């Protein structure tokens, strides 16, 4: 069985320019995403977790071609989409766009403030179903109902809605043309705790009903635990651990994953939690350490870690780690 999404050695490097008056001189490059590989099967949820600047959002944006990947293959439904986007054949691009949708982090920014909700929801229909305008209104109503809003909300403007409701609209827009894969970029991190649970439930329910796969990007590990079937941990542009969610959460083997999990304060005072407090901070991507990028902060670092970068074996359903000295 071919995976729905198969990302192979995806990289996005940004050249760092030093501006001179008339010429730009390339000095170095930032490896925002480096050699990232993972797959998502139909109806599954893979979570991409990590701290800010680890490259999780860039990975998503590269898959969607919002930034052009420097290198690598993004195979979606069996086709490599990178050259399709590059050539820009509109019919083929639309074919991909329709099955691959994005839900944005900030529901305050992701809706056009001058459009009513109805107009916003009709946009994907206008693009992908131009020949049946008569059915648009019915579909908008259906979508609103699906995400727990009411039909008359179609006449309202985004500023009349709360954050949670706007995020529902964002989800409805992404679902409008029945995608196979939704990329969810921190969809609940700007929402209040009680609203967060509602949106997470909604996402789970939609997945059960429509069988859509999710690529869920988040730094909030508790929501990751809830929503996903698989999880991939990123550090400084690189995947360090990948596996089934329960496996990774109960038996983390990369030292970074362990520290990350233990850093989450558990809502239970006095919980006998072994707390690993990492020293130091994430180095800037411009000054990426040699060898394993995590070795300067790692308690179990060996001399080899500073020299040779550990590789993540292509995960074939199992539990993969990129570490010379796993826990």
């Amino acid at each position: 069985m071919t995976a729905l999404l198969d990302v192979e050695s995806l990289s996005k490097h940004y050249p760092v320019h030093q501006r001179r008056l008339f010429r730009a001189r390339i000095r170095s490059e930032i490896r925002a995403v480096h050699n990232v590989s993972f797959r998502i099967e139909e109806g599954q949820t893979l979570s991409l977790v990590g701290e800010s600047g680890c490259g999780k959002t860039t990975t998503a944006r590269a898959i969607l071609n919002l930034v052009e990947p420097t290198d690598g293959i993004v195979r979606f439904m069996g086709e490599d989409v990178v050259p399709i986007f590059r050539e820009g054949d509109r019919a083929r691009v639309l074919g991909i766009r329709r099955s691959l949708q994005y839900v944005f982090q900030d529901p305050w920014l992701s809706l056009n403030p001058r459009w009513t909700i109805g107009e916003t929801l009709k946009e994907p229909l206008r693009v992908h179903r131009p020949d049946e305008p008569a059915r648009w209104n019915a579909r908008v109503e259906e979508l609103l109902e699906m995400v727990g809003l009411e039909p008359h909300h179609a006449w309202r403007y985004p500023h009349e809605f709360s954050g949670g409701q706007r995020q529902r609209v964002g989800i409805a827009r992404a679902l409008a043309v029945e995608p196979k894969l939704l990329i969810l970029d921190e969809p609940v991190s700007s929402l209040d705790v009680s609203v967060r649970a509602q949106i997470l439930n909604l996402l789970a329910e939609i997945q059960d009903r429509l069988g859509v796969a999710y690529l869920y990007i988040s730094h909030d590990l508790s929501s990751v635990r809830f929503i996903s079937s698989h999880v991939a941990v990123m550090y400084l542009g690189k995947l360090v651990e990948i596996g089934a969610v329960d496996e990774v959460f109960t038996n983390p083997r990369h030292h970074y994953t362990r520290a990350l999990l233990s850093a989450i304060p558990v809502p239970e005072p006095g919980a006998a939690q072994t707390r690993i407090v990492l020293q130091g901070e994430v180095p800037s991507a411009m000054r990426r350490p040699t060898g394993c990028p995590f070795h300067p902060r790692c308690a179990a670092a060996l001399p080899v870690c500073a020299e040779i970068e550990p590789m993540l074996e292509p995960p074939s359903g199992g539990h993969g780690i990129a570490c010379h000295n796993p826990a």
Partner: protein
Amino acid sequence: MPSTLVCASDAPAMNTADPLLEVRDLKVHFFTRDGVVRAVDGVDYSVNRAETLGIVGESGSGKTVSSLAMLRLVPPPARTMGGQVLFEGEDLLAHTPKQMAALRGRRIAMIFQNPATSLNPIYSVGAQLSEILMWHEKASRRQAEERVVELLGLVGISDPGARLRQFPHELSGGMKQRVGIARALMCNPSLVLADEPTTALDVTIQAQILELLADLQARFRMSMVLVTHDMGVVARMATRITVMYAGRVCETADAGTIFSAPQHPYTRALLDSMPRIDQSYSGSARKTLPTIAGRPPNLLNPPPGCRFHDRCPEAMPECRKMMPVETTIAPGHSVSCLRRGSTGVAA
């Protein structure tokens, strides 16, 4: 080197009533074009010496506004409409602006949410920290700088002497927040007010900062008010917890009780609605988190009676009519809910 320690927030609740700060019936209203928003509507809480009070609530619950009102820092169009803020026996709401200015930063200090914007970008770290001491304690520049170096070392900044001449933009987010903490401690305040001190930080940095705050608090036996939306953070830090909803206090108890035996339906629902990292959700038993129906009320026109009644699973007809009064149901545990034996006043 990572250090491994076991949780430290097991300090026993200070039952001996020795309140350093007492907020009584505080009211803050926003006067907007559309009407009066009762952002804080009769809030009581107290902070004892050497304890950390966690104030938790969702956005719009009034947690931040009430803490700003304590320092008389609410911005227009908001106005403090009544109540008392007793700090070491003095009513801060009766102070003159000059008295308040002398008190802020010296006896009550603040740690802000966003370290990037709470430091002035055009002054060096040394300059803006020593200024506080020169202003409040009339210290000389030399004395002030010595103290700054001492404090920077204390908050875990390496090579503090050199950092003195650095500017905020040269520091990382975590470092900036450490500087922010050092700034709060400059004058040995008896109370530190921390408003979402780690929300803008990454989890591993958050863990470092929380550890630092817990350590400093224990060392100097200072009192702290920690305002946050993150239940995990209060669980880690707070001795006692006050839960706010829609401008009112739902429940106050020591941290253990809030998590193990919450009484107010809102506290219960809030705790239940959070997914947990130590629980598996996969498999057949998947996937509905308990939620709170509806959404927080519009405070322009709050519901009559208990603010939570229209979302409350246990609401009864009286909840519409009567406003519950915070009532002590066990030593150190007070709840405002008619179902839990609170008395009510007609709305």
